[in-house]
């Protein structure tokens, strides 16, 4: 059962694959004297997956938080589905957020709620038109999609890290989003689980025609799931392109990064 969107007026711009779903325009962000982002710009359209790689502390996760409106940039703008996330009203930001799914690095499941309640959380708050049976069916569909049938009543503490990420993905997809943001989806997982998560993300992206951004340290994962890769260093994007473009690059930082990962 696919859930029709409750309100998508802000997303008409992203209905076609031509218009960018996410536009990052010269975003800068500092914490005290430390400049974390320094004029970062890129676009992501539907059907595209941009992997952002870089050393720890280069502002990758901050960039994701700016995109979802949890943090405000010092300069520049993050325009998501036509909504400037740092200047829009609370209602417009909420409207844009309903079109976004976010997978946190540690899944950030609500530990007082069961797996079923976690996945149903967005539905309970934004799809009040669903009957209890429709809600349950939707949750079961989502868990089936991420390969977690039969775990409805378990608590987050009772399942493994990889399974928590799957539940997090199911929750991120609950409202049938246009944009999927993934913060280190394979961090802390063994290579087999990482591969499974990569495959799952890839399938979901193809199936839902999502505009995705993946923040990761894992070049193997980035190569698998991303259509483009951006390498960040010192708050700037050093290079952006396909994996082959990165391999051909003469930048020493890029060479170091690739050498380390392979």
């Amino acid at each position: 059962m696919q859930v029709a969107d409750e309100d998508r007026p802000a997303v008409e711009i992203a209905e076609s694959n031509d218009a960018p779903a996410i536009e990052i325009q010269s975003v800068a962000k500092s914490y005290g004297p430390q400049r974390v982002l320094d004029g970062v710009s890129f676009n992501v359209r539907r059907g595209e997956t941009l992997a952002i790689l870089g050393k720890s502390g280069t502002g990758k996760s901050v960039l994701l938080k700016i995109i979802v409106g949890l943090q405000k940039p010092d300069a520049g703008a993050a325009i998501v589905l036509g909504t400037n996330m740092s200047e829009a009203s609370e209602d417009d930001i909420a409207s844009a957020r309903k079109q976004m799914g976010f997978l946190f690095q540690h899944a950030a499941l609500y530990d007082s709620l069961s797996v079923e309640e976690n996945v149903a959380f967005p539905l309970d708050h934004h799809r009040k038109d669903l009957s209890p049976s429709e809600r349950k069916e939707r949750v079961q569909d989502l868990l089936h999609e991420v390969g977690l049938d039969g775990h409805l009543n378990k608590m987050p503490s009772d399942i493994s890290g990889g399974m928590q990420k799957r539940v997090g993905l199911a929750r991120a997809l609950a409202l049938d989003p246009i944009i999927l943001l993934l913060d280190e989806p394979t961090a802390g997982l063994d290579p087999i689980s990482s591969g499974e998560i990569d495959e799952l993300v890839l399938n979901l992206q193809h199936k839902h025609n999502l505009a995705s951004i993946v923040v990761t340290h894992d070049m193997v994962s980035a190569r698998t799931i991303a259509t483009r890769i951006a390498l960040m260093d010192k708050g700037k994007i050093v290079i952006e392109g396909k994996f082959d473009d990165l391999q051909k690059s003469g930048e020493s930082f890029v060479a170091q990064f690739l050498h380390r990962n392979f």
Partner: protein
Amino acid sequence: MSKTPSVALPISTNSSPVVAVLEWFGEFGIFMWQVLRAAVSPPYQIKEFVRQLDEIGARSLPLVALAGSAVGVVLALQARYSLVRFGAKSLLPSAIVFAVVTEMSPIITGLVVSGRAGAGIGAELASMKVSEQIDAIEISAVDPLKLLAATRIAACIVALPLLTLVASFCGVVMGWVASTIVEPIALMRFINTGFKGAEFKDFLAPTFKTCVYGMIIGSVASFQGMRAKGGAEGVGSAATTSVVLSSLFVILADVILVKVILLLFP
């Protein structure tokens, strides 16, 4: 932008303690204004409010009843000793009833709930904050102030007077039990004597002043929890400061409210 407050401790920065305390009150004021705005705008989080009422109210009941009973027994024993010395033993039921209902039950209930629910709220919200669960709620286009803070504050405001009534009942009954063990007296006679000359308003204001205690406990604990930083240390710090600050403010509020009640209901 994120609605959760941003600083970890009341005095946590490099600025002077006075500035830090002023900053704390400033941030707390902004937090309360945001919570109030969130609380009065639909949709209302009724399900979460009821869950919190159960967590804060029903689950504090045994502890509050026990504390109220202990206060009744201690008062009966102490007051008897003093009153007998001054030849005013007949005033014992009134002394117990007035002391329990007007002051001891409200403040004991406030402090017990501050310790139990204040620590619970502070630790739970701090844990949610450091594990990004609050961010996850916000990204789901749900207002965490409305879902987490407003419901807990409202539950504290509703639960405190009800718990105070229970503490008062237990205090009076156990005061009678303690009295009657030393010198038997019929329950009805004890109650009639105890409430003789008392008016409804004598008990109404002291009971409902605990709504203020509830607001203090819920809001301070929610504030401290939602501004937690770091890992386990941040959670522990939030729980501790929630109890310390809410207990302190409850006692200060009691001092002020006693005077206000005496002025308004002479």
